[in-house]
């Protein structure tokens, strides 16, 4: 960054345009499919910016995971539910929602700009984990950090993913056909019957774990 070439500036400018155009596209396109495609555009732009900042591994992951998996998932859902119909973007039912949102948006941008222009950014100790630059490829540096210092967090994220998968399966599963409710054993109400429990909704049978 110390010596920015014209190419760098050009790359940044182009990517910025792509990113912002995609973002605006997400917000204004009435059709969700269009929105998803605009999202892809933004994601690519961000990936380019990652590359521009020497985060090669992340750029790759960005493209593969985000653009490749997440957006595809979005599209799947859109197709699956048949909700590709257009949303009436011009109409807003909540009074004042839109103007206030825009005002807030402008205010926020203004504040960010003031912040970025007016203050010195870098605070705190440098290189807490290790330098981002230096010998070795970016992938290697990142891997070293992930598998050493952040190993536990890394393992936990894997657990998180598994849980998310299980959760998604449970949530999206089509409920089994309604079984006729078995009469509950008599002892249960006697044991559990307190006025508070009477009011509570009946426990859906679907949520009883299968195993």
């Amino acid at each position, binding site marked *: 960054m110390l010596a920015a070439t014209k190419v760098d500036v050009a790359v940044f400018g182009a990517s910025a345009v792509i990113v912002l155009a995609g973002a605006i596209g997400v917000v204004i396109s009435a059709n969700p499919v269009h929105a998803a495609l605009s999202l892809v555009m933004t994601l690519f732009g961000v990936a380019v910016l990652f590359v521009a900042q020497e985060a090669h591994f992340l750029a790759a992951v960005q493209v593969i995971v985000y653009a490749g998996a997440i957006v595809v998932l979005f599209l799947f859902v859109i197709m699956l539910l048949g909700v590709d119909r257009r949303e009436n973007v011009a109409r807003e039912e909540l009074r004042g929602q839109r103007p206030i949102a825009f005002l807030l948006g402008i205010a926020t941008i203004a504040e960010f700009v003031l912040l970025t222009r007016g203050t010195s950014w870098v605070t705190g100790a440098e290189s807490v984990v290790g330098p981002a630059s230096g010998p070795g490829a970016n992938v290697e540096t990142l891997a070293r950090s992930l598998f050493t210092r952040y190993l536990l967090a890394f393992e936990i994220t894997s657990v998180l*993913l598994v849980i998310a998968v299980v959760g998604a399966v*449970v949530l999206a599963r089509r409920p089994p056909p309604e079984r006729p409710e078995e009469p509950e054993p008599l002892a249960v109400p006697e044991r559990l019957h307190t006025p508070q429990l009477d009011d509570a909704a009946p426990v859906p049978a679907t949520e009883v774990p299968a195993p």
Partner: protein
Amino acid sequence: MTLDGGWYLTLAAVLFTIGAVGLLVRRNVLVMFMCVELMLNAVNLTFVTFARMLDDIGGQALVFFVLVVAAAEVVVGLGIIVSIFRRRGGTTADDLHLLKG
């Protein structure tokens, strides 16, 4: 012309704001979800920028985790949307106002 981190940060800020505004103005839950992704990306961009500015790989590592969490979140979130759709036949946020006081 110099290309210091400020430009990246500003871009990220604008991106974040667009995402936030989108979240506020759109009714389609799917699109709102996409706007959340925009915001996440803005933050990711910020992290990467700081990682470069501070010369600290930690920023990138954090982006990695954000990506993973975002993936998980999308998976679960979409699952919820699917099940809501099954129950109510639509994905408009304004249809869901059971929390009205």
